[in-house]
């Protein structure tokens, strides 16, 4: 669990290190993601208690237990719904949702779609290992056609979802992909995602070294490219969609799409216009408010 170390003026990555050692398999991609998030939080400069990390269930969803922030380890697939509740209740907090491809694009797929179109101000990190890790290796919605897993011993028949393309066409205002083998690059994407006011997706290639023998570190090291290097303009919607469809010998990472024109949900919501976070406001109805309500009923 996270601890309550006294914090210096400017927190460093170390301040975000939790007390519990991750129980991931040695070599799991999720270590790099955790490290990157520690770096990103430090760069953003807020204190640990100002962050809330919310996850579902899965190997990847254990992350909140390892980072020194407030955390919620919720139900499988429900991280985004819970995180939306947290954000709207206290919009001054930095809310980070984390989880796996099964959690986010499988069972949680509907919350994914609707949280994006609402442009809720969250950073959503998906540790996409193209497999169900915690349940010991079944096919995931991002597994490729033909992939053999415990639940598809003769090879998967189902086309994978494309989370980036979905995000771009469904209203996510910040859409990026990182690789857990490149912590620095990943941390930068996370940092920018937290800074962005609106929904930020950072899909991460985070290899499951135990159950996925297809999408390994070696595989990604060979194929991953950076959109920055290709001179991609993240405000170019069409180019973003096209890049999101790229797969094969070259798989782009980096910031695909960035739209700062739409207000985030908390920004648009009149109830949050003034008065600070809901969670800090005085509760209840005044006698005058009550009287006005009753008047309409008489």
């Amino acid at each position, binding site marked *: 669990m996270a601890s*309550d170390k006294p914090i210096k003026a400017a927190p460093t990555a170390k301040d975000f290190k939790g007390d519990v050692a991750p129980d991931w398999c040695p070599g799991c991609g999720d270590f790099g993601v955790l490290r990157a998030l520690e770096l990103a939080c430090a760069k953003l400069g807020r204190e640990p208690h100002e962050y809330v990390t919310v996850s579902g269930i899965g190997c990847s969803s254990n992350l909140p237990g390892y980072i020194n922030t407030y955390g919620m380890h919720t139900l499988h697939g429900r991280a985004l719904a819970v995180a939306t509740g947290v954000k709207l209740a206290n919009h001054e907090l930095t809310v980070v949702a984390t989880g796996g491809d099964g959690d986010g694009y499988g069972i949680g797929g509907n919350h994914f779609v609707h949280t994006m179109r609402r442009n809720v101000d969250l950073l959503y990190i998906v540790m996409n290992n193209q497999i169900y890790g915690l349940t010991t290796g079944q096919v995931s919605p991002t597994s490729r056609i033909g992939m053999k897993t415990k639940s598809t011993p003769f090879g998967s028949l189902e086309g994978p979802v494309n989370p980036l393309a979905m995000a771009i066409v469904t209203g996510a205002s910040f859409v990026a992909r990182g690789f857990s083998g490149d912590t620095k690059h990943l941390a930068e994407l996370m940092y920018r995602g937290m800074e962005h006011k609106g929904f930020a997706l950072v899909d991460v290639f985070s290899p499951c070294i135990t159950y996925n023998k297809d999408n390994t570190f070696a595989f990604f090291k060979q194929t991953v490219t950076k959109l920055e290097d290709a001179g991609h303009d993240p405000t170019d919607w069409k180019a973003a969609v096209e890049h999101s469809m790229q797969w094969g010998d070259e798989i782009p990472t980096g910031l695909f799409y960035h739209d700062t024109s739409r207000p985030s949900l908390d920004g648009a919501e009149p109830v949050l216009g003034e008065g600070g976070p809901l969670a800090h406001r005085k509760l209840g109805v005044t006698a005058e408010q009550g009287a006005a309500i009753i008047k309409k009923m008489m």
Partner: protein
Amino acid sequence: MAKFDFAIAIGGAAGQGIATPGNILARICARRGLQFFSYNSYQSIIRGGHIFLTTRISTEPVTSHGDKIDLLFCLNQDTMDRHLQHVAPGGTAIFNSDTIKPGEASEGLQLCPMPVKELSNNNRNKLVQNTVALAGVLHLLGLEFKLLEDILTLQFKRKGQAVVDENVDVARAAYEYSVENFVPYSTPLPQKDKPLAQVGGNEALAMGGAAAGVNFYCAYPMSPSTGVLHWMAENANDLGIMVRQVEDEIGVINMVIGAAHAGCRAMCATSGGGFALMTEAVGSAGMMEIPMVAINVQRAGPSTGVPTKTEQGDLWQMLGASQGDFPKIIVAVTGILDCFNTIPELFNLVDKFQCPGLVITDLSVSEGYATVDPDDINWEQPIDRGELIAEPDNDGEKYLRYRFTESGISPRAVPGTPGHLHVVATDEHDEDGGLISDEFTNPHIRRAMVEKRQRKMESVVSLIDPPELEGPENAEVTLIGWGTSKGVIEEAAGILTRDGIPTNQLAIKWIVPLHVDEILQALSTAKRTIIVESNYTGQFARYLRGETGFDADGHIRKYDGEPFMPHHIVDGVKEQVAGKTDLYVPYQEIVV
């Protein structure tokens, strides 16, 4: 003054504008300080379909739509054909004689045909018949025309003086026609001093939420709970309540849980099918120990069932909401004002005990309307958030979210509070929130944590009111009901007592925890006990026996979608007293 007890029923097709005359009559009554309860029987169809709105008016509190109709207001032939037979002796049926053929009236029943075309100067607006009939009703009730004139003026003001005049003229002609042709009721509509407010059940739930300090409400529309959402949405900006319509009920409750954990008072409402989707998260709130409230407004099931009809069929679903054992509080509200009062009380309990609170009610109350004395609505409810750490302290001790305490309650801190960082988890955890399942396994901590959680439930029961026998002390019959049936049972018990079968009631409101000792004590001297409920399998009877061992002598059950009327219960008791049956299922005469 003798008790005035009068029921007006308006019937027609969806889209014929039943609501307007219904509202006008209700408003007239409420302003005169009369009490009423109204039940609207309708179908799940937007236009067409039969609607039948019964408003029962009295000088005394009214808690059911009663047994009889005194005035039948027919907007179509269907209403005449179906319902004329239900009009009580001395009653009246009023109808548009241009389009509706009168049925065969039994002795002592006055038929009031209104020649709408003639009276309205051939006005072709389909709603004009409502105005005409309304004018007739005013005369029958002994009310002055001025009352209607004022109302119509207010109603049509926006459309200009010409429209006002046209309507007032039609109404006046109709009123005069009635004066000439129809005999008014011998007792005119009484007048009392204090005007009352008219409140719907769903509104009362929402208002109770507002009074409890709910500042986060979300929902996915589902009849018959949608009224709560509509009220919340309407009042969101004025009251500073975050109101969201979410993609589904799973999203709803998880959002509520997130908001509740972050420090809001958060609530949601749905009906049975939506609640089914919420159950997994109810368990997660139990495990993470996050206080929140979910309301299930029951409709007739199973499955999609009959969306616009009532039943008390979801009790076992509520009891069995989510896998495993965990503390939760379940309360079945007993009426419209109780809707308002229960929500703040429940929020204080769930905040204190850090667990989910579930409210169970049904269409018969949630879509009913009743008068409430505005002074009985206390907006300034006490708010007790329990052991909530919202401000940083500096006691130097390591904060443990799930600290083992004697009461089972561990002080809770909201995210954002310095010095209290922790993770809440749906996996079993240790005092610090560390996972038992993933980091290590320890049956001893597991057992201690189960016991810590369950320990919380022990003291809940001491903080809530036990049920009490209401009615004659040495009754022949004790009726046992739960939740919404309280009012109609009370009335049936009164009738039975008058009829020579002294009858009292034990109305159960708090379902979990159940006042086992108090219930057994109350029933220990009962002579004949009969459980009354709206479902097939006797869900409450079986639950009660499971928790207390108590076995009732008989049962009255209804599951045809329509709510109990007092005589259904009266008849059922009489049959049982006569030894004819120990399970009575009333026949629903009024077919909608």
